[in-house]
């Protein structure tokens, strides 16, 4: 490979500076603070603080509540990473088939993305409130004792549904773009060879979409882990019991409601390590199987 040599020494740094500065201020600095805090035991006001080494980590990891949050997060993240992708892919393929009004359908599909997370949460909360929810009523008529306020499974279904609904648009957008990039000649050739549409989809379209699918897998995972905080906060507040308390929600709850900064910081450090590991695994093992065409 040819090595590019830039004549200037300082210009590249200068051009990189804004981005480096942003990363330093908004990532490295707070991350460093979290590391520091995770080794301290402090009162909420920071009037007294003692260095406790890894005691916070030890306590967090031996807390059954933390293991529960980990389980909840795994279930929640898997569902929120894959369901929107599956639905969005289906919808994108269907939208491609339409000949009239394609633009309208696409626009409608993309709309939910513009809704703020917390507002999306409120929408679902109101629609499915067991007492006055418009959509809870038909469920009750069907004989389902719908009650996300007390039934852990119902609560999980509700937050997953809200988080999924919000993420379908984004996935849809990328799948539509991905589908358009697939050369028609390939599909035509398959048709001439007598392949059914279904067969052509799984052997040609789906593999060619792999880069998009992989990208969405990474994005959806990060979304499920972090950006869904607003939905959980608005819809269930982590309840009933601890049924929908994810790792991020627990960081917030322990830090800002229970004012236990040390434990909260230790949890966010662990969470950071989890995400780094997860992303590394995704790039190392899954990306190798992705064909970038």
């Amino acid at each position, binding site marked *: 490979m040819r090595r590019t040599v830039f004549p200037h020494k300082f210009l590249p740094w200068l051009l990189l500076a804004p981005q480096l500065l942003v990363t330093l201020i908004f990532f490295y600095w707070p991350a460093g603070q979290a590391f520091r805090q995770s080794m301290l*035991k402090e*009162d*909420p*006001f*920071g*009037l007294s603080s003692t260095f406790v080494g890894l005691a916070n980590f030890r*306590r967090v990891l031996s807390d059954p509540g933390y293991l529960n949050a980990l389980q909840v997060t795994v279930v929640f993240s898997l569902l929120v990473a894959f369901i929107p992708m599956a639905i969005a892919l289906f919808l994108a393929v269907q939208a491609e088939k339409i000949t009239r009004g394609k633009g309208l359908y696409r626009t409608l599909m993309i709309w939910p993305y513009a809704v703020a997370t917390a507002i999306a949460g409120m929408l679902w909360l109101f629609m499915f409130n067991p*007492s*006055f929810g418009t959509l809870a009523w038909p469920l009750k008529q069907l004989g389902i004792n719908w009650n996300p*306020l*007390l*039934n*852990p499974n119902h609560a999980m279904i509700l937050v997953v549904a809200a988080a999924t609904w919000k993420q379908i648009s984004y996935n849809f957008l990328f799948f539509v773009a991905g589908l358009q990039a697939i050369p028609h000649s390939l599909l035509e050739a398959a048709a001439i060879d007598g392949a059914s549409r279904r067969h052509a989809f799984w052997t040609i379209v789906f593999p060619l979409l792999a880069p998009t699918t992989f990208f969405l897998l990474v994005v959806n995972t990060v979304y499920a882990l972090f950006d869904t905080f607003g939905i959980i906060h608005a819809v269930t*507040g982590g*309840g*009933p*019991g*601890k049924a929908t308390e994810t790792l991020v929600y627990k960081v917030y*709850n322990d830090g*800002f*409601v*229970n*004012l*236990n900064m040390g434990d909260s910081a230790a949890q966010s450090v662990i969470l950071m390590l989890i995400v780094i590991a997860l992303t590394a695994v995704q790039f190392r093992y899954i990306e190798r199987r992705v064909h970038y065409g």
Partner: protein
Amino acid sequence: MKLTSLWLSGFAVMPFAAHAQVEISWWHAMTGANAEVVEKIAGDFNASQSDYVVKPVFKGTYPETLNAGIAAFRAGQAPDIMQVFDVGTGVMMGAGGAIVPVGKVLTDGGFTFDKSQYLPGIVGYYSTPEGEMLSFPYNSSSPILYYNKDIFEKAGLDVDAPPQTWAEVWAAARKIKESGAATCGYTSTWLTWIHTENFAAWNNVSWATNENGLAGTPELKIDGPLFVKHFQEIADLAKEGVFVYGGRTSEAKQNFTSGECGILTESSGGLGDVVKSGINYGIGKLPYDETAEGAPQNTTPGGASLWVMAGKSDEVYKGVATFFNYLSQTEVQQFLHEQSGYLPVTMAAYEATKASGFYEQNPGRETPLLQMSGKAPTENSKGVRAPNLPQLRDIQNEEYEKMLAGQQTAEEALKNAVTRGNAAIREAVGG
């Protein structure tokens, strides 16, 4: 040229103006009608004198305001006055170096602080065991019973006699459900504040050791027989569909204002929303357990108080003292009480409201006051305090939800709440 001279004259005047008026920041968590009351009080105070300007700033919900204040303190940018909800009282009391006791601010500011002028039930809660007032009780409330008169009538219940005891509430609620007058007989907001903390005070049983934490580190006692009996009754009603759970805080109010439930226990501060809903409502005292000795005792205050932050100039403290002195004035307290549904903090304001005939026109508005000041408080009924009360309530809510979902009995729920709660307290005090 003209502009420049304007600029210059502007600069010339500004330092003088800033010097003349001391600004006092007040972070609060009031919304809707209560936020208007805050603005009005601050505006009236600013107009009443020319030395100080109180600037109220809305900082979000109670927990958000507390967090904002804590974060600001850590950054050296704390407000002068901060509104902190009852549950955060323990947190603030533990922050000795971050706050200045209100009693001290008032006396240093040249005002006499006469404790006997204040309602004992309220001021007692915001004082040290030695009697020094730590924060200024701005908005206090107490839980009461609301009932839907139309539903009562349909169910064949006496519209003018709200149930007095829990046994009567259960009976009335079952009748409402069975008669088909409503789909839900009874609901309640705040199972922690109403059915645990106030339940203990009102029935004169211990919530925790050390005078419920007021005299030292508490150890929870909420797995006592009376609590177990009470919560098992609620769990049974939930199973029958007579009791409907609304949520951890005040969500259940909607189940009542929508006409779904016939009876509700809620904060007296929730009256505004009940009135606004237009339902035909009645008010009763918080029910008690007739098997408890000495019940009903007295209920405890909820709501919020104003804390003065440390590290400010003498001028600011003088201004804060002047403002608090203004806040204690009878007319101001009366206005606050009548507008917001919160309780007055001085005896004089209570008497004046009584004399004005307000309670005759608004029956029920006196109920929380009667509940709180009916009897001299015992060590079970002065209120509850813990360094981590929000966390304790979280734990209790989790266990109650599992109980209501039928996953555990009341006894198991309360035992778990005690074990987990006590572990959390030990952790919080660093033991």
